[in-house]
């Protein structure tokens, strides 16, 4: 791999410091790649050539002057377009935010800038992060670099596709029900959801506040660690962010899994999971056992109800979170004769069908007379699920499962059947409800040459354990395949 666009962050940083390339070279490489792939992928909603160019130049000047901001210095990254960026339009892939330019940076974005990262642009997502295929974007779907007839997963499909295709070296998505891990799985890259509260949500445009978490997408587990290190840690602007120091996330890297107890979640290893995915997952479990891990089967019965609970809690929170988009202060406004009519028209025109479906669902679930039966009941399931995960972690260090029940499906295959689409997140949703960290690591390809992801889960705050197991999975899998699209880039002339 000689193209700079295909390097890991760690390798790119090494080359930059040895003088083999500059931040400007890295940015040129990913933008050149994008100029070829974007026509097929539509990963980006906006490429900030000027801002990124200036940031890369500044990064080079600083390095030349001896100021090194660390591993992300000069690294070109992609950001999901639900992270607010000062002075840069932020749309959530929704018409309702038309023309909105945030006056402030999300905490994670500010920390990335502080770390010297170069923000290439804003990537596509399912509108307001509601979806599993990036087809619910008001600006058109993104596609999978392994097969442009297929979806990249979602809702962080744009950033996953960009990282897989080489139009960014890494990036950040948000994971509310699997929206980082599932597209990571479908695009053959690493996707990680930290413990709830590990990364500040300030400036993450909320979908479901109690579930949302910003997470990295990367080409290696170590890159994911580097990315998370830059943004993790308490933020005074987010009361739900975890106080105190972030543990050493690299502590377990390279230590292997010998002597660790790893649980296989029974409920996620059967019904509804694709045969090839199941086989690859089982094989990896066997290899972990060979590597010295003590493998046990673990049952978490409440997982069966996780999807149902999620589709009450997340829409309920969303119905309130999205209430602010009313045409009064920013974004789209569709006029009406009365204030109510203006608000209603703005929302009817500005939101896409999936968003409207979830806002209605959530409003209903919270309504007087229905609250106990729906939202209240869902919260009980959530409590139960937390308890069962906590009990499981008394016995094991980490849990594993497939990330997605299938590999990438064809564009349009599930758009007419919301429930089938919702089922894409069956393996990832449980730990959004429990608040625990999880990661998807690519472990191979199916017969159609589509990537298969393997999910590792760990107790809350135990990211070092999570990365330890993930790094071993990565070492064993030695996944080196490249998406057809990235590999087919014409050589620069």
């Amino acid at each position: 791999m000689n193209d700079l666009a295909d390097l890991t962050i760690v390798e790119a940083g090494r080359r930059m410091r040895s003088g083999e390339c500059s931040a400007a070279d890295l940015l040129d490489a990913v933008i050149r790649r994008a100029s070829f792939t974007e026509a097929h992928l539509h990963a980006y909603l906006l490429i900030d050539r000027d801002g990124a160019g200036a940031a890369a130049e500044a990064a080079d000047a600083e390095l030349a002057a001896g100021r090194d901001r660390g591993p992300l210095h000069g690294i070109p990254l992609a950001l999901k377009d639900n992270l607010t960026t000062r002075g840069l339009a932020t749309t959530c892939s929704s018409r309702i935010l038309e023309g909105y330019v945030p006056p402030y940076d999300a905490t994670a974005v500010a920390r990335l800038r502080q770390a010297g990262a170069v923000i290439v642009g804003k990537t596509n997502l399912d509108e307001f992060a509601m979806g599993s295929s990036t087809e619910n974007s008001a600006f058109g779907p993104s596609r999978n670099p392994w097969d442009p007839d297929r979806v990249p997963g979602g809702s962080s499909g744009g950033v996953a596709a960009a990282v897989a295709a080489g139009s960014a070296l890494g990036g950040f998505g948000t994971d509310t029900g699997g929206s980082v891990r599932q597209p990571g799985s479908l695009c053959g890259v690493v996707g990680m959801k930290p413990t709830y509260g590990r990364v500040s949500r300030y400036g993450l445009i909320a979908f479901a506040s109690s579930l949302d978490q910003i997470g990295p997408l990367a080409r290696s587990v170590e890159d994911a660690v580097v990315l998370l290190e830059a943004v993790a840690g308490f933020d005074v602007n987010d009361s739900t962010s975890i106080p105190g120091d972030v543990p050493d996330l690299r502590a377990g890297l390279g230590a292997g899994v010998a002597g660790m107890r790893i649980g296989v979640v029974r409920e996620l290893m059967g019904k509804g999971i694709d045969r090839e995915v199941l086989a690859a997952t089982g094989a990896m479990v066997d290899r972990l056992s060979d590597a010295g891990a003590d493998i046990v089967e673990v049952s978490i019965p409440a997982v069966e109800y996780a999807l149902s609970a999620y589709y009450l809690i997340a829409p309920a929170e969303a119905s309130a979170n999205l209430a602010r988009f009313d045409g009064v202060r920013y974004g789209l406004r569709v006029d009406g004769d009365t204030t109510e009519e203006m608000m209603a028209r703005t929302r009817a025109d500005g939101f896409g069908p999936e968003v409207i479906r979830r806002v209605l669902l959530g409003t209903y679930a919270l309504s007087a007379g229905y609250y106990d039966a729906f939202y209240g009941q869902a919260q009980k399931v959530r409590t139960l699920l937390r308890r069962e995960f906590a009990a499981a972690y008394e016995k094991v260090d980490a849990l594993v499962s497939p990330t997605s029940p299938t590999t990438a499906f064809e564009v349009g295959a599930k758009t007419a059947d919301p429930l089938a689409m919702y089922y894409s997140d069956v393996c990832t949703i449980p730990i959004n409800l429990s608040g625990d960290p999880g990661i998807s690591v690519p472990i191979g390809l199916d017969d159609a040459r589509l990537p298969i992801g393997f999910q590792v889960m760990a107790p809350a705050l135990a990211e070092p354990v999570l990365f330890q197991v993930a790094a071993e999975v990565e070492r064993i899998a030695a996944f080196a395949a490249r998406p057809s699209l990235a590999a087919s880039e014409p050589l620069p002339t």
Partner: protein
Amino acid sequence: MTEYEAVIGIETHVELQTRSKMFCGCPVTFGAEPNTACCPVCLGLPGALPVPNEAAIDGILAIGSALDCELVEHSVFHRKNYFYPDLPKNYQISQYDLPLCVNGRIVIDVDGEPVTIGITRVHMEEDTGKSIHVGDGGRIADAGYSLLDFNRSGVPLVEIVTEPDVRSAEQARAYGAELQQIVRALGVSDARLEEGSMRFDANVSVRPRGSAVLGTRSEVKNVNSLRSLERAIAFEIDRQIGVLEAGGRVVQETRHWNEETGATSSMRSKEESEDYRYFQEPDLLPLHVDDAKRAAVRQALPVLPAARRAGYAETGIGGRLAAALVATDGLGELFEEAMASGAGARAAANWVTGEVVAHARRMGVGPADTPLTGQHLAELAAMVEDGELSATAAKDVLAGVLEGEGTPAEVAAGRDLIQISDASVFEDAVDAVLADNADAVGKITAGDTKPIGFLVGEVMKATGGKADPRLVSELIRSKAGG
């Protein structure tokens, strides 16, 4: 004819005057340029998150503690969902079934009778922005357009809800006044009704006296003074009785008080009322109030109005005088300072509630903002006691001190008001007056004491009012042999 009884519950909103807003660092201001005190959080911009203001939590706990509430150990914020242009998130962060303070009480005094009003709950929320509807009527439905000011958006707001224990408009007013004094004594808010930093809503119903069943209630809004609280409730009680007497049915609705017409009118009925779809605010952690916190809050409470009135009563200052001293900011402090410096309670109380209040009102300042100190009052009292000043002259001196002319001694000297208590100084004047009024002297000698007053007046005139009238009177009696 049926005799009716009113059943009234009062909801009060108090804006806390903390330095910053409830969930962001913006300053709490009044009267600033519109939209100059706001940020992504209080504008509800996408992605912004609330962070609770600890000073506001301390403020509400002080109020709860002063109202004898239980300070709840585990309390949470909820989202109250409704759409309104001046509510930037279209939900208000408030509290629902787990408020910070519950089960309190306030004892009010109505015509010397103590009445206990139960406090159901005291909870924390954020204020909305302000809508200025331009066009007819000042209501959103009639407006040509509306202007929005978000300076108030996110200001800490405490809601205090009573049990339906209030039985008359007069009691409601007494409750409002007492609550206002408590909030001011705590120093958490200036509680100004006219500026909206304290606002009342009253739930009013009537029922035949003796009935245990509650009548249908209406909620009266837009009362901007204690007087209008009393008037609005009195109107509403009469209106409801009128409806029932005419064989009608009271409708559950929200009614708007109109200060000019002195009447309430229907705003919206219950059928149109909203389902607020409360659910726990996921952006905020639960609040914890432990025993140490409770103790600290109680410890920090100032002497409350009721206790102060009781204390004054022990010095012989009770009833309306004590109430007046406590009711206005700064008066009680001035009175207590005067007492501590040695003034007599009665004189100090009279001066403070009389001359001081009148002067401050004339000057348009607070009673605490004049140059007068408690030491001055004590000095003044001592001068009267020592016979250096007559009661009349003392008032003049007090006026001088209030005008900033100096200490009582300086003013008395400056205005030449020191009383002459040395009889030898004005004996010549007495002799001259007696010589000029032989008739009167004759009557006195014959045993008629009536002319003494007249003669004293003549001497006072001759001495420019500085002679001690008591001594003058004695001297006349002894010289005229009366």
